[in-house]
């Protein structure tokens, strides 16, 4: 195998892998620490079974559904203190997407409390149930119902206790403002009364009963409302403690020695020069090397000395971003298949075949990967930023050969994830440094490390071919995604014959999940291709799409976006250098359509207006959903306008915001966002799908504005 990462994401042909599984799979960095002699004695002495590491090749391939195991008992979902204070537990994390508000709402709704009366404890593996990773837009469809069920069960316990105390039918009891009440009577029972009642306390220790009565939507008072981030005051005062802000007594600051290029092997290392720095402890263990010092500055200075004492063996077979798409094509598993629809192509009025290129991009959350690790008598506590707290606990247990119950992972609300913080290598690194130093260690990756060593959104090579009959109907459709994944690879449009497929290949960079992952590339390519086909058929891009769409939710958002944008007029009236484009897509059960207006002057593209319609079932928190949609649109502009990871010789060439521009205030379009509320439908997540339509809408507008088709991202216009 030449390259470093052959399909860590998508086990080819795994029949058990579902769409969600693929979204959640991540690529772990393997660590092979030598067994710690002291650790062995301690662990064996304590009579615990050593956790055996799984075979290395399996580790990156395990996948996990969004739901996790959930709460085994009612008490595992919520705690009622003697004074009635209620704490709800969840394994989900908050990294800006608004889960803290939404899950608090879910609990408050069923407990009949205001959100401010519910404390939500998130992602401390010692205290919360495993609700699965925070990924794949699963918090809304999986965890909101789980929390509602637990809290509704607690409410029913209160009703049952009141019915028994007052000797009345439970149907005569209503819970309002956290108290059980009976019409016409003054008596009240509160949640605090549950704690002192033996039967109720026993029921809390039991499994959550099936089918507690959930509050029907027409009686919702908290869900469906705009509720602000519960800890907003901590954000504006700077008092919120992010993982990188954790400070522990005696804590040191860590740095890790990185290879000079991907795949380089550490042949030898002399720690002496680094150890000579005051207070610095350096460690070299297999391929891991790093140090910890009393300040970041001393650690950085010592790292320079450490780097000077390292001998590396570099690989010589690196590909580059310039050769990326040829590389992906050459290594596509089984080769790119022939289009099987020869008869349709031969009998067509028009045929079209195009290739689309989507480069690697980075998540670059504002808070680079961070962890603080602390050992105490063979037990390990790590504060870190990850969307997968229980998976990170497993990674730590495996790396240090200790049982999972000796590892506690705490995930404070952290500074951005976007699908990029799944794996736990930063936690493992911090823990190894803390083990060596015998003191707590804080490790925060530099921005350059984050741009280089964090997982990338996979690059995509997409080959599309289609045929049209004389009436402009699609008679065949052949669509192949190489490298970036299956999600949204199937077309939602009616076609005579269709085959869509995902092919693995040899991926030159370590890639993993990203907001909406593969649907970003698949929808970009499909919607651009549809636009070209409409042009070939001599049809309006909207009419061409509608002619191939059944009645339904996708059609609804597309028609609404066109109406709100006034597509009929503006698509005709805008003339170069201005132009309008349209696109739509569906992913993870939600639906999006966007219209964009652009202007192209002096080979420079500016997006002036984006009108987007989004629908994800019943809206649970309109203001938060709006924030997610507008954030997705703006984030989605990055890869079309400016973002592209360039690499050569095993190095990232632009590992900095100065050379990898992301969206800023200046240059942003006017935004017009419409949310379609569907009280008749279950709620699904809304933090990902709103990203997928903006790039193709802009690309299609560029064609109208400048006569150039965009088939490669980011847009590079010819003079």
């Amino acid at each position, binding site marked *: 195998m030449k390259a470093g990462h052959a399909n860590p994401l998508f086990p080819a042909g795994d029949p058990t892998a579902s769409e969600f599984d693929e979204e959640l799979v991540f690529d772990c960095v393997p660590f092979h620490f030598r067994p710690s002699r002291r650790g062995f004695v301690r662990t064996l002495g304590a009579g615990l079974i050593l956790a055996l590491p799984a075979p290395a090749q399996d580790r990156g391939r395990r996948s996990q559904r969004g739901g996790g195991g959930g709460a085994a008992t009612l008490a595992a979902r919520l705690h009622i203190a003697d004074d009635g204070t209620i704490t709800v537990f969840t394994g989900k994390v908050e*990294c*800006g997407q*608004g889960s803290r508000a939404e899950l608090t709402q879910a609990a408050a709704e069923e407990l009949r409390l205001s959100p401010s009366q519910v404390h939500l404890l998130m992602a401390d593996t010692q205290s919360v149930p495993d609700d699965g990773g925070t990924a794949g837009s699963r918090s809304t469809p999986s965890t909101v119902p789980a929390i509602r069920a637990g809290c509704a069960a607690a409410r029913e316990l209160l009703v049952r206790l009141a019915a028994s105390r007052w000797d009345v039918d439970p149907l005569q009891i209503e819970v309002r403002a956290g108290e059980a009440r009976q019409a016409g009577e003054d008596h009240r029972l509160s949640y605090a009364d549950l704690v002192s009642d033996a039967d109720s306390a026993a029921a809390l220790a039991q499994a959550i009963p099936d089918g507690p009565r959930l509050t029907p939507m027409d009686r919702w008072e908290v869900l469906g409302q705009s509720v*602000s*981030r519960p800890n*907003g005051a901590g*954000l*504006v*005062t*700077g008092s*919120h*403690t*992010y993982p*990188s802000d954790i*400070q522990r007594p005696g804590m040191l600051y860590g*740095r890790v020695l990185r290879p000079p290029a991907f795949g380089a092997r550490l042949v030898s290392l002399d720690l002496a020069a680094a150890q000579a720095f005051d207070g610095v402890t350096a460690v070299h263990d297999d391929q891991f090397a790093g140090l910890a010092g009393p*300040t*970041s*500055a001393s650690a*950085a200075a010592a790292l*320079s000395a450490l780097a000077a004492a390292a001998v590396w063996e570099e690989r010589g077979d690196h590909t580059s971003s310039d050769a990326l798409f040829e590389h992906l094509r050459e290594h596509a598993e089984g080769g790119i298949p022939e289009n099987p629809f020869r008869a349709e192509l031969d009998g067509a009025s028009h045929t079209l075949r195009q290739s689309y290129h989507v480069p690697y991009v980075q998540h670059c*959350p*504002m*808070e680079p990967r961070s962890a603080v690790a602390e050992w105490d008598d063979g037990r390990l506590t790590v504060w870190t930023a990850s969307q997968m707290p229980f998976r990170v606990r497993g990674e730590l247990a495996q790396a240090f050969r200790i049982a999972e119950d000796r590892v506690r992972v705490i995930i404070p609300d952290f500074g*951005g994830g*976007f699908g990029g913080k799944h794996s736990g290598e930063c936690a493992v690194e911090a823990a190894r440094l803390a083990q060596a130093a015998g003191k707590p260690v804080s490790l925060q990756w530099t*921005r*350059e490390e984050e741009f280089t060593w964090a997982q990338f959104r996979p690059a995509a090579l997409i080959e599309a071919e289609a045929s049209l009959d004389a009436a402009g109907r699609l008679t065949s459709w052949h669509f192949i995604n190489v490298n970036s994944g299956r999600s949204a690879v199937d077309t939602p449009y009616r076609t005579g014959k269709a085959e869509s497929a995902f092919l693995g290949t040899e991926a030159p960079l370590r890639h993993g999940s990203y907001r909406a992952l593969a649907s970003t590339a698949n929808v970009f390519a499909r919607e651009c291709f549809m636009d070209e086909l409409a042009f070939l058929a001599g049809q309006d891009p909207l009419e061409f799409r509608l002619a191939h769409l059944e009645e339904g939710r996708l059609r609804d958002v597309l028609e609404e976006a066109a109406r709100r944008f006034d597509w009929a007029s503006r698509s005709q009236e805008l003339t170069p250098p201005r132009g309008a484009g349209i696109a739509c897509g569906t992913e993870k059960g939600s639906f999006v359509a966007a219209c964009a207006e652009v202007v192209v002057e002096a080979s420079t*593209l500016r997006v002036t*207006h984006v009108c987007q319609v989004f629908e994800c079932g019943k809206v649970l928190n309109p*203001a938060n959903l*709006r*924030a997610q949609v*507008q*954030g*997705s649109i*703006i*984030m989605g502009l990055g890869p079309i306008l400016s973002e592209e990871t*360039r690499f050569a010789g095993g190095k990232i060439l632009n*590992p*900095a*915001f*100065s*050379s990898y*521009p*992301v*969206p800023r*205030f*200046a*240059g*942003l*379009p*006017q*935004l*017009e*966002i*419409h*949310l*379609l509320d569907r*009280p008749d439908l279950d709620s699904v997540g809304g933090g990902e799908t709103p990203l997928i339509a903006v790039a193709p809408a802009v690309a299609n507008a560029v064609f109208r504005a400048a006569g150039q088709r965009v088939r490669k991202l980011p847009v590079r216009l010819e003079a």
Partner: protein
Amino acid sequence: MSWIRIFSGNTPFGLDHRRDLWKSEYSGSPAPLFLPPGSRTAPVVMNTEPQETSQTSTTISFTINGEKQTVASSPDRPLLEVLREDLGLTGTKYGCGETQCGACSVLLDQRRVFSCRTPVSQADGREIVTIEGLSREDALHPVQQAFLDEDAYQCGYCTPGMILTTVALLAENPRPDDAQIVAALNGNICRCCSYPNILRAVQRAAGGLPKGD
């Protein structure tokens, strides 16, 4: 089925403010998209070797959040590190280390500086304000309150820098127009892309939004 019209274009985004925006700081040439004022446009490879810092410690005194403070530090250590590691003021964030993202913004003599590249020696004898020093006796600073009112954050990691940059802007220009706000905040990145809410918060703090809007 009900439509919630949540947001429609009352932002300055999309206006052709490029000319005005870049005039003062970008010497007149067209601005590459999403690059902040004064940034390098050629590909940049960061030095992978950390810069040597002097190990010699010196005494530096300044006023921070209204109180006099003396620290012993090598003079070229970034102010950001001294704030976070020596003084425990972790509200100021590391984001990039190259003055590109604004997460490390603090006020030095009432002007915004990027503390990640400000040697601590430059603070000697001067007045520093960090996010921890804005509120007074449980009352939020008006800019903090405006950010809270507008939900002008998602993950919130960029928020302290955004707020301090806004405070500096309003100290110089109490009634900035939208293009001036965009220009002042363009050195600050919000990767969650809460830019529209942040803009509204700044407008609100500047008195430009009616109550309850």
